[in-house]
């Protein structure tokens, strides 16, 4: 039976792949996260009740963080097996291709950040290539102020939905004349439609009231103009959600003055990079937030600000919460809600009640302190239950 289901899954996966572009229609009312905008469920590798997930530790603090994740999962009894693939900045293209195949097979991945090798203009950024090849078109970042973390602004609760595959990150550059370099920014109607629809569906699904499109259409009239137009036309299909748009420099100014006015923000790739880093800084730093990358068939989870953290690697001072939050997001995606809640509760207790903060949050604790506290809380909560 299991093998029949497995082959059915793989058959449907191949089928979807060959269909090419599909127009997204209504969202079926099945399990919430799995069928977000795809009209069929995400394929996952589930054998005998245990899931297999690809793990890409990456460079910098990635490997240590992944170690903590695996440790905590063991204590929490999470039925997930990790397939670890080491991709660093020195990996060859073949190794990278193997990693891609692994993610396609498993459907879900947990990822650190892969450092880019400087000076070599031919190979693109590995992170960006991963995203475009797997067509992970939406990057979702949920930024919320933590009650016990000091930050200049309180009551911030912003969802940033950023287009992840096109725009300025198309990595198409050429030098026609010596000393003159052209870099192309590509915006397509299909891409903009996809991300706009995702944003509105997300807003409805999570009870949000407002979507703001961020752009620079006064200067880049055709490209950002197309993005804005597409967002406006999709907005008409969702009259219950309030839609507005704002120019990116004004957005940044408003964010540092009064970030509470924003709810859901949708934007192309580069502005997404800027805005997500600004908002991450406003709520207390890159050590806490997790980013989710969704495509039609695959989902990849990583720390929100995609830093390699090379300056804090190996010194036991990095904040493990970001990677742990991404791991919890992954568990929710796999519908392992109870395990996710267990770990999130432990993180919450550690940060807000026991107040064990690492250096980036203004405290003195080491990464290991944080992890051990989380494990203690999990052990305390699962003392009476049995697997």
């Amino acid at each position, binding site marked *: 039976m299991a093998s029949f289901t497995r082959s059915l899954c793989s058959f449907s996966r191949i089928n979807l792949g060959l269909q090419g572009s599909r127009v997204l229609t209504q969202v079926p009312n099945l399990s919430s996260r799995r069928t977000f905008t795809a009209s069929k469920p995400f394929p996952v590798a589930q054998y005998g009740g245990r899931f297999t997930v690809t793990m890409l530790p990456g460079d910098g603090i990635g490997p240590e963080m992944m170690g903590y994740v695996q440790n905590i999962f063991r204590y929490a009894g999470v039925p997930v097996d990790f397939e670890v693939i080491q991709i660093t900045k020195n990996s060859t293209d073949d190794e990278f291709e193997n990693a891609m195949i692994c993610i396609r097979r498993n459907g879900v991945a947990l990822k650190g950040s892969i450092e*880019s090798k*400087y000076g*070599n*203009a031919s190979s*693109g*950024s590995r992170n*960006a290539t991963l995203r475009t090849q797997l067509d992970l078109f939406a990057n979702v970042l949920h930024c919320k102020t933590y009650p016990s973390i000091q930050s*200049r*602004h309180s009551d911030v609760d912003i969802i940033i939905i950023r287009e992840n595959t096109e725009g*300025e*990150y198309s*990595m198409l*550059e*050429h*030098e026609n004349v010596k*000393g*003159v*370099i*052209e*870099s*192309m*920014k*590509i*915006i*397509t*109607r*299909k891409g903009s439609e996809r991300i706009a629809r995702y944003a509105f569906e997300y807003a409805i699904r999570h009870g949000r009231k407002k979507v703001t499109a961020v752009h*620079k259409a006064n*200067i*880049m*009239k*055709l*490209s950002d103009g*197309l993005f804005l137009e597409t967002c406006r036309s999709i907005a008409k299909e969702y009259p219950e959600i309030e839609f507005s748009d704002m120019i*990116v*420099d*004004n957005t*940044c*100014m*408003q*964010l*540092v*003055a009064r970030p509470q006015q924003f709810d859901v923000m949708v934007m192309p790739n*580069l*502005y997404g*990079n*800027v805005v*997500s*880093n*600004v908002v*991450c*800084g*406003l709520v207390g*730093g*890159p050590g806490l937030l997790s980013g989710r990358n969704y495509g039609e068939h695959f989902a990849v989870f990583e720390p929100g*600000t*995609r*830093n390699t953290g090379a300056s804090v690697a190996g010194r036991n001072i990095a904040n493990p919460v970001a990677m742990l939050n991404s791991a919890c997001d992954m568990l929710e995606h796999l519908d392992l809600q109870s395990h996710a809640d267990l770990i999130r509760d432990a993180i919450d207790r550690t940060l807000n009640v026991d107040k064990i903060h690492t250096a980036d949050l203004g405290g003195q604790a080491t990464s290991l302190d944080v992890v051990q506290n989380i494990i203690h809380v999990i052990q305390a909560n699962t003392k009476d239950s049995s697997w």
Partner: protein
Amino acid sequence: NFPQERQVEMAGRVAKFLISGARLAGVRHYSSDARTVTLIPGDGIGPEISAAVQKIFSAAEVPIVWEEVDVTPVKGPDGKFGIPPAAIDSVNRNGIGLKGPLMTPVGKGHRSLNLAIRKEFNLYANVRPCRSMEGYETLYRDVDVVTIRENTEGEYSGIEHEIVDGVVQSIKLITEPASRRVAEYAFQYARNNGRSKVTAVHKANIMRMSDGLFLRCCREAAERNPDIKFEEKYLDTVCLNMVQDPSKYDVLVMPNLYGDILSDLCAGLVGGLGLTPSGNIGEGGAVFESVHGTAPDIAGQDKANPTALLLSAVMMLRFMNLYNHATIIEQACFETIKEGNFRTGDLGGKAKCSEFTDEICRKIQERNG
């Protein structure tokens, strides 16, 4: 052998020729001479704040002669709207301009005037110093950042096309001469204004060739200027750190789009565009401007805040090497805002524009004795 009158006449003509030649060669840098500066009052609150600045400058006895021009576009001989030639001549001749806010009407037949002025005078670097102002407190206390942004190319080259229906391509152009120019200017500015560090902001991990070229030019300029510290940071790192701890950065140099976003971000940290000066440096001169809007709702009611234009004018004085006058006027302005009795409406006070101006003039005259 010419008759007497002819000789005098010829001598007169030769003398006139020599003098006009000298004038054309730009011989007007005598420190005792007054320099002529082109003034573009602008629209909306522009005229009142320009008048305020002129009043303050005369109170401080700055050796400047103002030449007011109007840049409302006129139809040229080819039918296209453009800046009137009188204005262009004026700025070309004087080399320095001070500009108030200009209105860009939507849907009319001409492009943004700001962009036109920038292109016309080849203003390649936009400098925006952002400093926390005592007396107008925001959530960020220790901001002292200068953003220097490449002003002519990059993402704003305006080259866009629709390749196929539904696919649009916008080209970002980075050239070596422009990058080199702005990098060199950044280090020069740092040296002239006592700054210690220049940070190049880029995204060379994604846009390898274009931002890579920009970064290379910055590195070369750094080698030529070893007395100033140099570092390079990714755009996302800078954004992240800027909202958490702005004191980490000193002078930032970057291509056009990042510069636009970051300079507005920094302006937001210190209290908005109403307090931020801005200068555009070109090869033959410079135009200093206030970057806020024309505020048509308060125009003519004596409610406007001339601080942005005044601080831009102070930047202009420093550019013209009139450092003493610049410091006196700047001090008077900061003190007035700090004391708080004469703040205008946008800073939370109730004073009128004229009262604010008079207070500054009073402080300057007190200072000068």
